[in-house]
């Protein structure tokens, strides 16, 4: 079955082709079945391969499809590599992907572009699977670009709206800025190692010393690529705007899969980053800054999806902090649990928006718990998970990150705890304002409120269960037994890094103290939020009211977009105008337009030789003969 691993990306590709080419002619249910069915098949194959890999002797398996580029020293085959890391990502992508596909059949049921949606979604699955299954950096780059493209297509899915188009363009362009870093990183890697396949690059890297300059620069460039794709400072402003797309898209792409591509890339190249401590410090700093700033913005946002978007950015920041201190397993663990509870919450918000008939402002919601029991209960579980309440999955993953960070540097740990407090606060602010209290919307909306159909609630339930039990794959030693399944599973991929970094050794008491601190901080934030929004019934201020400086700073996203516009976009616009006026119109146009009159002028002059008089022609002949004589003999 391992040989059939190439089917995993190809099945969604087939689904894309069928839905894209014939979707208009086949019925909606068939479109949905094809779209979800291909992903289900991929999921089944992934599960089988996962078990085969776990029980088998070999730790990795490569399928070489065909020779793609073979130029001189550059040899890039179109090959898929299945090892523990990619297998884990496969399970997450196909599993959560399948649930979201099922959810979409319900959510997008009334939409005109139903088949187009599923075609794009399948194309996205194909690109993402190529990204994680690729056996060399260019294959990853193919997937990288593919998911960027699908993100653009899906964000701007309702293309009639110009704002949505702007948002999708913004996402794509910011991704491209990061991609430049990725490309340069790839070039540097090729220059250093002479190959771009994982096995060659990562094996040769062990021969290099820590702090090698070339590796540092290459990893910094790769990290720039990761900031673009995974929405870190300063390339994160596209993610909140990307909420213009349909909610399942936000769940799949901007919560569970695409944004984790950057983290996957860094974990895949872990040895390179371990050998470049400068880059690691950079990653950790940017990660924690992003986590804090995003959390600070989230506490004042009033759009349900925007809160979740900033929450995603913040959690991604945590994952990058983990990468920055060398805790690769912790980062992957958090990727997994984050996929579960973030997708859950996004799908839950989709359910709410569906019930509210398109309304997304939480100030107009409230008291939805009675009308939508399943949604509210699963959403509650998601909020508990993200806040890090034991024994849900988020608790284990976040705590592992914080433990590793504490062992590395206490300052970042402290900031991490602050971030955790903010996370718990804004999540439960969202929950209380949406689901508790009394309804604040209009009467028609109130009549329209209903629980979502089974196709939408079933994935919610499944994801909620996963959010609860997902943490048990990597229970730390202090809870007796030490069921560190994930860590053992990922060991082959992280071997060389672990050799250099060593294993985390915190004394048991320190670990327990850290856990208690983060747990209590989270709990107190939740109680504080409950105080504000349930007991005191405080409402967020309406748009026109006067706000305090900090509040408006936070609500206006710290004016990041405005700063970018002033610093980068406006100068580019004026430069383009100048170039147009002076070079294009006066220079190039004039040059090209002058060719025709020039040739006409030359023709007019040469025409005068043709006088028609025979005497003149004879004279010209004699002059010519003289010239030939002179040239030949003198």
């Amino acid at each position, binding site marked *: 079955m391992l040989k059939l691993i190439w089917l995993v990306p190809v099945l969604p590709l087939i689904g894309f082709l069928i839905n894209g080419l014939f979707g208009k002619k086949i019925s909606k249910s068939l479109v949905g079945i094809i779209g979800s069915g291909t992903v289900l098949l991929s999921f089944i194959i992934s599960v089988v391969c996962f078990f085969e890999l776990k029980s088998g002797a070999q730790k990795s398996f490569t399928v070489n499809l065909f020779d793609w580029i073979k130029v001189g020293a550059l040899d890039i085959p179109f090959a898929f590599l299945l090892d523990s890391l990619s297998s884990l990502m496969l399970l997450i992508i196909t599993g959560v992907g399948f649930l979201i596909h099922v959810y979409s059949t319900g959510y997008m049921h009334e939409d005109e572009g139903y088949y187009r949606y599923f075609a794009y979604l399948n194309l996205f699955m194909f690109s993402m699977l190529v990204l994680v299954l690729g056996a060399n950096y260019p294959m990853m780059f193919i997937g990288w670009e593919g998911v960027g493209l699908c993100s653009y297509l899906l964000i701007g899915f309702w293309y009639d709206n110009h704002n949505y188009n702007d948002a999708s363009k913004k996402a794509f362009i910011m991704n491209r800025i990061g991609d430049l870093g990725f490309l340069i990183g790839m070039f540097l890697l090729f220059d250093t190692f002479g190959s771009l396949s994982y096995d060659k690059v990562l094996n040769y890297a062990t021969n290099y010393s820590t702090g090698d300059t070339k590796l540092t620069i290459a990893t910094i460039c790769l990290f720039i690529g990761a900031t673009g794709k995974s929405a870190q400072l300063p390339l994160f402003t596209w993610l909140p705007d990307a909420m213009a797309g349909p909610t399942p898209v936000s769940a799949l792409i901007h919560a569970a899969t695409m944004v984790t591509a950057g983290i996957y890339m860094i974990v895949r190249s872990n040895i390179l980053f371990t050998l470049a401590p400068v880059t690691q410090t950079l990653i950790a700093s940017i990660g924690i800054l992003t986590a804090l700033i995003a959390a600070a913005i989230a506490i004042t946002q009033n759009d349900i999806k925007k809160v979740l978007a900033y929450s995603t950015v913040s959690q991604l920041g945590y994952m990058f902090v983990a990468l920055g201190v060398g805790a690769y397993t912790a980062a992957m663990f958090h990727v997994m649990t984050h996929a579960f509870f973030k997708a859950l919450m996004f799908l839950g918000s989709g359910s709410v928006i569906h019930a509210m008939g398109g309304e997304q402002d939480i100030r107009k919601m409230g008291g939805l718990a009675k009308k939508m029991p399943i949604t509210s209960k699963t959403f509650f579980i998601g909020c508990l998970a993200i806040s890090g309440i034991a024994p849900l999955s988020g608790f284990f993953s976040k705590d592992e990150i914080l433990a590793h960070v504490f062992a590395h540097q206490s300052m970042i740990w402290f900031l991490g705890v602050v971030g955790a407090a903010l996370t718990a606060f804004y999540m439960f602010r969202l929950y209380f304002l949406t689901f508790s209290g009394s309804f604040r919307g209009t009467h028609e909306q109130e009549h329209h409120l209903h629980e979502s159909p089974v196709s939408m609630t079933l994935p919610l339930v499944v994801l909620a269960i996963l959010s609860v039990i997902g943490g048990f794959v990597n229970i730390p030693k202090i809870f007796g037994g030490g069921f560190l399944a994930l860590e053992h599973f990922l060991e082959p991929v992280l071997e060389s890094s672990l050799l250099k970094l060593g294993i985390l050794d915190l004394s048991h008491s320190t670990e327990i103290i850290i856990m208690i601190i983060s747990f209590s901080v989270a709990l107190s934030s939740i109680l504080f939020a409950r105080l504000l929004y349930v007991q005191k019934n405080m409402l967020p201020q309406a748009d026109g009211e006067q706000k305090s400086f900090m509040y408006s700073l936070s609500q206006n996203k710290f004016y990041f977009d405005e700063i970018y516009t002033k610093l980068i976009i406006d100068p580019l616009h004026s430069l383009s105008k100048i170039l147009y006026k002076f070079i294009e119109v006066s220079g190039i146009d004039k040059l090209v337009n002058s060719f025709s009159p020039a040739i006409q002028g030359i023709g007019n002059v040469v025409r005068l030789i043709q006088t028609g008089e025979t005497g003149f022609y*004879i004279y010209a002949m004699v002059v010519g003969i003289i010239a030939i004589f002179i040239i030949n003999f003198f």
Partner: protein
Amino acid sequence: MNNNLIQMLNAVPINNYIVLCTVLFCIGVLGVLIRRNIITILMSVELMLNAVNLLLAAFAAYRNDPSGQVFVFFIMVVAAAEVAVGLGILVMIYRNTLSIDLNSLKRLKG
């Protein structure tokens, strides 16, 4: 006596013949360039041909190679034919334009 006379005859160096023929040729060119009468121009062309003939014959004599004189013979043949046809054309031109001025043939003006 024949041989004496003959041996007396080859005292002129070849350079003299070259200069003479070149001068005659250039006088022919002068005639072609200066005159406007078509008949005079044709006659100047005949003069040029004769200059060349003389030079060829001189070279043949000095090289002891009869092919030079045979060549002169053929040039005369061609010159005769050309004069016949050329004068025929001239008569046609006169019939059509009623003048033998070279400047009357201006229809090819571009």
